[in-house]
């Protein structure tokens, strides 16, 4: 849960946030490229969820398992829901939605890592 893949999810989340911020400032609608990036971020969280749950089942380490699984299963919903909510918007604020998504996802990864560590 603390390997390079988790780090990559944090980086991609922040990239989506910066990208969306640029569109927001430039008064640009969310385009196909930013949509693909957001869905890519969602896909990474699906992989993180599968990997995390497999890792959890293979260990008897002491951690809050219900919380851990809850975070992992629900987190992909945020970029998927955000993508759908942003793509139906005709103003710059679609990018505002993806800015929020891009900032929240890295925080979630850190929180998931804390639960994994037993904090």
């Amino acid at each position, binding site marked *: 849960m603390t390997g390079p893949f988790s780090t990559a999810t944090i980086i991609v989340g922040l990239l989506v946030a910066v990208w969306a911020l640029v569109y927001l400032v430039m008064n640009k609608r969310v385009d196909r490229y930013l949509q693909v990036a957001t869905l890519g971020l969602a896909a990474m969280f699906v992989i993180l969820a599968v990997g995390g749950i497999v890792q959890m089942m293979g260990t008897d380490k002491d951690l809050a398992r219900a919380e851990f699984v809850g975070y992992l299963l629900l987190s992909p919903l945020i970029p998927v829901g955000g993508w759908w909510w942003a793509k139906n918007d005709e103003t710059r*604020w679609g990018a505002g939605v993806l800015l*929020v998504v891009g900032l929240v996802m890295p925080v979630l990864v850190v929180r998931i890592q804390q639960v994994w560590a037993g904090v």
Partner: protein
Amino acid sequence: MSEHVKARTNQGFGRVLVVVYAIFAVGATARSVIQITQRLDEAPVAYVLSAFAAVVYIVATIALARGNRTSRKVAYVAIGIEMAGVIVIGALSLLVPDAFPRATVWSTFGSGYLCIPLILPPLALWWLRRTE
């Protein structure tokens, strides 16, 4: 769609507001389900309050996202309750910490969530006024 008013709560900046509310709704609900099913006896007051906060966030999210005349009224009520909740629980958690052995989303004015729970309701009320 005669029920729709001119300015919609779910357009423009409202779009961002809805997504923030939605994240709080999902997070608070998930947390609350785990707390109540797994360890309600630890801190029943705090955990029931968490569940109540979750319901408030769900109602506010749906009301803001729908953006018609009825939902605007619902949004005012839900966000008013949210505002009162974060102020009262925030103050109580500092004055009588013993009553809250476990944190709720509104404890210490939502400081565990960058004080976003305290910022959200005035922002949402401002937005409701602006789109009236």
